[in-house]
């Protein structure tokens, strides 16, 4: 692959990641609305609450939690923005379902428990064929041990005359079922969620718990948060705390079972600030901890999403060229050995 092709491929992938993250946030909002407004015996409990797996005492954060049958039973839903192309990493990602298969607490019941629960894995339609195939293969080979009912569901945004030319999320079952017959019935008929009506909520809820792609976070800071922090288009100094406070003010928290929590994490902001420094649109202030000068007066390309992606891809490719080939090979061999 020529360096130009590599750059284009890198840009394409990173742009897809940004888009997929955006769609995932919309989907989470849409599903919340769907379950909130529907009356079919399966109620939406929370988006991204903190649960605990009893055996290992590990914290888990399912994307959506549903309860049914008078709260005796529950469903943990996991939404996958994009899944790794390499099987080794895909299996690692799906191992999360093993953790969800154990007894978990955190449900919206007095004892924080339910009698039993099922799992729903939502993945993008472009990933679904491969996911279904691999899950079947790995569960039969014992590489993936999912002991609960698992239902794999695909989602995509489509525009169709059938739906009055509207953009809709089309959610369809691909593998397995839950024990909630009402949900199964809805899935069989395909769940349709009007995307247009989600925009107002999206403006206030732009993140899910999963860390956003770097460029997505950078875009949000550049286009929504920095303009809120400084009246005019010129360089200004700010700290991570100040940025965080502004995000708290304008991106409302998701309501979780354990109280409200913020959408944006300090860690994400720190990463973005480092990336801004790497591409020369911010400078670290040496004598002030966690403080930066944002070079907001700097004339950069109008299309900042394209600018950020291109600069970061160039940096990644430059660094990968510097890395000794033997080191990369060794790492690949080690990981493949682990997989086998």
């Amino acid at each position, binding site marked *: 692959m020529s360096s130009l092709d590599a750059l284009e491929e890198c840009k394409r992938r990173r742009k897809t990641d940004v*888009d997929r993250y955006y*769609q995932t946030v919309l989907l989470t909002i849409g599903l919340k609305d769907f379950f909130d407004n529907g009356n079919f015996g399966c109620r939406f409990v929370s988006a991204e609450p903190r649960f605990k797996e009893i055996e290992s005492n590990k914290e888990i954060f399912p994307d959506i939690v549903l309860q049914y049958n008078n709260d005796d039973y529950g469903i943990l839903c996991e939404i996958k923005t994009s899944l790794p192309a390499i099987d080794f990493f895909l299996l690692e990602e799906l191992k999360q379902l093993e953790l969800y298969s154990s007894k978990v607490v955190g449900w919206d019941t007095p004892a924080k428990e339910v009698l039993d629960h099922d799992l729903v894995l939502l993945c993008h339609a472009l990933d679904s064929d491969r996911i279904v195939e691999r899950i079947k293969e790995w569960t039969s080979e014992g590489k993936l041990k999912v002991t609960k009912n698992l239902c794999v569901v695909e989602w995509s945004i489509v525009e169709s005359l059938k739906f009055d030319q509207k953009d809709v999320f089309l959610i369809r079952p691909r593998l397995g079922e839950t024990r909630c017959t009402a949900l199964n019935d809805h899935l069989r008929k395909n769940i349709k969620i009007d995307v247009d009506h989600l925009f107002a909520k999206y*403006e206030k809820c732009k993140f899910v718990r999963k860390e956003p792609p770097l460029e997505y976070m950078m875009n949000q800071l550049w*286009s929504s948060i920095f303009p809120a922090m400084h*009246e005019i288009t010129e360089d200004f100094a700010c700290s991570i705390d100040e940025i965080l406070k502004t995000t708290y003010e304008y991106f409302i928290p998701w309501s979780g079972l354990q109280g409200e929590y913020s959408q944006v994490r300090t860690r994400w902001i720190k990463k973005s600030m480092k990336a801004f420094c790497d591409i020369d649109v911010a400078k670290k202030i040496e004598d002030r901890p966690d403080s930066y000068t944002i070079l907001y007066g700097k004339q950069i390309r*109008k*299309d900042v999403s*394209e600018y950020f992606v291109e600069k970061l891809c160039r940096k990644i490719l430059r660094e990968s060229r510097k890395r000794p080939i033997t080191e990369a090979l060794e790492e690949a061999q080690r990981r493949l050995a682990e997989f086998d």
Partner: protein
Amino acid sequence: MIGKRLPATIGMIINQYSEAFLKRSRGCIRIVALISEVSFEELIDEELPELEKIEVRSKKKIYAEDGFALWNYTVSRKVRNERIEGSFLALQVGSFVFIITGHRPPFVRKCIMYIAKQLHPDIMVAYITAEEIYEILKNFSKVMEIELLYSKYVAKKVFGERDTSVGFARAPYTEAFRKARDARPRLWIDSIRGFAEDESQTDFRLSREGHLNYYKGNFEQYYEHILIPIKEYCSRRLKIFEKRGRRETIDRELRPLLIRYDTKVFEDPFVRKQLVAVVGGYNSCNFSVIHKGNPHVYINIVDRMDNSAFSLRTYGSDSLIIAPQVKASKASLMRFSKHLIDNFLEGTISDFKV
């Protein structure tokens, strides 16, 4: 101030100023409608000296009573090796300023519009829609009791592509609008030159830019029946753009705007893609394309003139939503909506109830 009659002294002075220009061959009076919520005089006094290459050569206050103020300015600007100089009258009525000059288009473009652009957001450039031009002409024809004909018009199609009428017509102005409406693809009148059937005292050109040129007639008739309606239409629009930023709302609520088009324009994937190009052509902005036309388009925009920020999203197949972010000034929303009319399509703007 709407509806308040123009003092006779002001009318007389402007007519005197105009006379010499109108006598010239192809002479005309050009009027540009601007919006300035602070005193235009103060703005010019305070801000203009800070601008490079433009200076006020002379300034004279002519009238300042009853909410009307009239000044005469002479300004000069160096553009490359050329010096452009000219005079204009500035008539401030409430928050509107009508700049009146008899000088040629380069003076309007390179001096007057340059000042307006440099003083944004304190000064906003007014605009009207094709539908509003139609209403103004209808009313003008009625109250002046004249048969209003058109000689030429410029219409625009989607993406601001121009379509100029060929030749010199002599037909009712309504015919021009009918032609534009019936054209496929549909056109929007961008400017039209109208005159009275008896070719007496009415001959003018009115554009969506809010520019009025008149070749015959007196200032009062145009002020009463064209400039005041422009002011009213723009005031209504400004009211829609007021207090949209989330910092200005209780609980940081969102106050989006809906722009509805009269065709299902976004059914065509090409149009959705081109919308991104239209945003790319917006001066002094940064934008991030988050979702590009599959099927909807979602773009974050920062207006670098005053750091206003908003999201733009296609909504259904016939509408756009502008979702203002933390800060979104009315000057910025006015500028952006004008950009969409000039370079995309004319639609109806309204409040969107969340």
